[in-house]
């Protein structure tokens, strides 16, 4: 069942995570070596089917890929904001996205979907604009950051701030704190994987070697992977942005803001599908269940799926087969409920 696009009732808003961006699917230029971050899920005939849905993904506020963030030019000084950039929250990101949709003259979202920090935005969206959001799929996410997650974020920030090139965030005309940023990213990547996942992906294998060298230079495959990910990240990401975004996550606490999680979801009107992954230890399944419980306490239409996966937190990017089936089913139901119902009116 396809809604006629001009009715603007088939909008699916994709919310990206910490290091993601608006480039969610496909190749934008011939120079792109990789497709968008959720290319497995978004496109013609895929779970988020671009033949059926009007799919939007924008850079969130505070990022370094097109929206305004610490690396943007401060109009008052003509220089990058750096540490003068105001502290932002997940709620601010949602407010900014709402303005974008207003600009696009869209007043109804068929479905919101996002993993990790994208899931946090989805929850905030449901709470802030209940009448506008018909349904939502928060994945691998949490309604409040756990002390463990804050701890990892802090170590990441400390690595950046401790880099001699950081210079209080004023490094845009000099060498950036790449070492700090790459360490932050390495820590991040450890939290995105799982013990079992690492066993499967790397084991104790050596990189380009057969025997242990008993030396300090990295030789295990897992080390090589982390170094590669860390280095690659510095080519595309801004260190100050990492500080601000990780801080925005730390302060995300819906229960704290609204008194309780149940209270937070009191006025939500969206149908929701909460998805967690068994081996995700960054935002473990129990945190998703807290969201579901709070919504059920309010008698909301909420479903919960816990996908068995060894991919850890990254599973929301990798469990394509499971997610495709689940997302397709859910989207077809909400399309029937919301688009076809409005057709009959």
């Amino acid at each position: 069942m396809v809604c006629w696009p001009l009715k603007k009732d088939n909008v699916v808003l994709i919310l990206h995570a910490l290091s993601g961006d608006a480039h969610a699917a496909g190749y934008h230029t011939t120079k792109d070596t990789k497709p968008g971050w959720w290319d497995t899920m978004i496109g013609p005939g895929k779970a988020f089917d671009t033949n059926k849905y009007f799919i939007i993904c924008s850079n969130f506020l505070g990022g370094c890929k097109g929206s305004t963030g610490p690396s943007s030019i401060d109009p008052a000084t003509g220089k990058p904001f750096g540490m003068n950039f105001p502290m932002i929250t997940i709620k601010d990101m949602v407010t900014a996205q709402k303005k974008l949709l207003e600009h696009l003259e869209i007043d109804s979202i068929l479905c919101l979907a996002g993993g990790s920090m994208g899931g946090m935005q989805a929850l905030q969206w449901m709470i802030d604009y209940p009448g506008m959001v018909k349904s939502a799929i928060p994945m691998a996410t949490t309604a409040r950051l756990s002390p463990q997650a804050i701890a990892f974020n802090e170590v990441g920030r400390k690595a950046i701030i401790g880099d001699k090139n950081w210079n209080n965030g004023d490094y845009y005309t000099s060498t950036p704190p790449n070492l700090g940023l790459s360490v932050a990213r390495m820590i991040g990547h450890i939290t995105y994987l799982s013990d079992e996942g690492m066993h499967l992906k790397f084991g104790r294998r050596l990189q380009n070697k057969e025997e242990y060298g008993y030396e300090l230079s990295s030789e295990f495959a897992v080390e090589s992977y982390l170094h590669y990910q860390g280095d690659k990240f510095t080519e595309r990401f801004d260190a100050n942005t990492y500080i601000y975004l990780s801080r925005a996550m730390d302060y995300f606490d819906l229960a704290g803001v609204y008194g309780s999680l149940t209270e937070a979801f009191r006025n939500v009107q969206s149908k929701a599908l909460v998805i967690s992954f068994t081996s995700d230890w960054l935002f473990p399944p129990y945190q998703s269940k807290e969201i579901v419980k709070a919504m059920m306490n309010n008698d909301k239409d909420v479903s919960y799926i816990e996908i068995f996966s060894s991919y850890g937190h990254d599973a929301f990017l990798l469990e394509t087969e499971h997610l495709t089936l689940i997302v397709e089913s859910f989207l077809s139901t909400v399309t029937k409920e919301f688009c076809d119902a409005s057709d009959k009116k």
Partner: protein
Amino acid sequence: MLRTKSNAPYHADYELILSLIEPRSKVLDLGCGNGELLYRLIHERQVNGRGVDINEKNIIQCITKGLSVFQGNIDEGLAEYQDKSYDYVILNQTLQATHKPEFVIKEMLRVGKKAIVSFPNFAHWQLRAQLFFSGRMPKTSHLPFEWYDTVNIRFLTIRDFRVFCKQKDIHILQEIDMGYFGQNLIARINPNLFAVEGLFIITER
């Protein structure tokens, strides 16, 4: 969860449960499978219905039907559900597959004002006769599984369940004993021998 009747086109027990549920009440179906009963309860009895199932494929089928369902193991309890937040909590043909039947029933009575529990009667005369004469674990059209390949791990009888309720101070509001083709006289006269399945509506005392 239980495969006993999942392929059968007609469910006598579904009809029975449909007839027992007050219209427009709030219902939680534990081990809801592909959601067929829940779907019918919502559309035929206008209930506000939710389901719980352990199996991802079942959950996806439920979502396709537009149902709100929770993937979870009922043996772990119903921690996500508030006290007395449902009018009925249903456990249809699943009790015999639970690891902690007592805990599951206690949780049902905590969350629901009433609980509906149905299970195969393992004291049915056919099962008794098979075990007695062949000396092997019985198989019937209702219970077609081999001993090594069955989800059924709790072999209870109708009489067992009555005793259980008495011991645990659970009040039986109604007992319905079913033969192969629904309720019949002979199953009513001696349920423990002639009923294929028992269905109980219970509450906390």
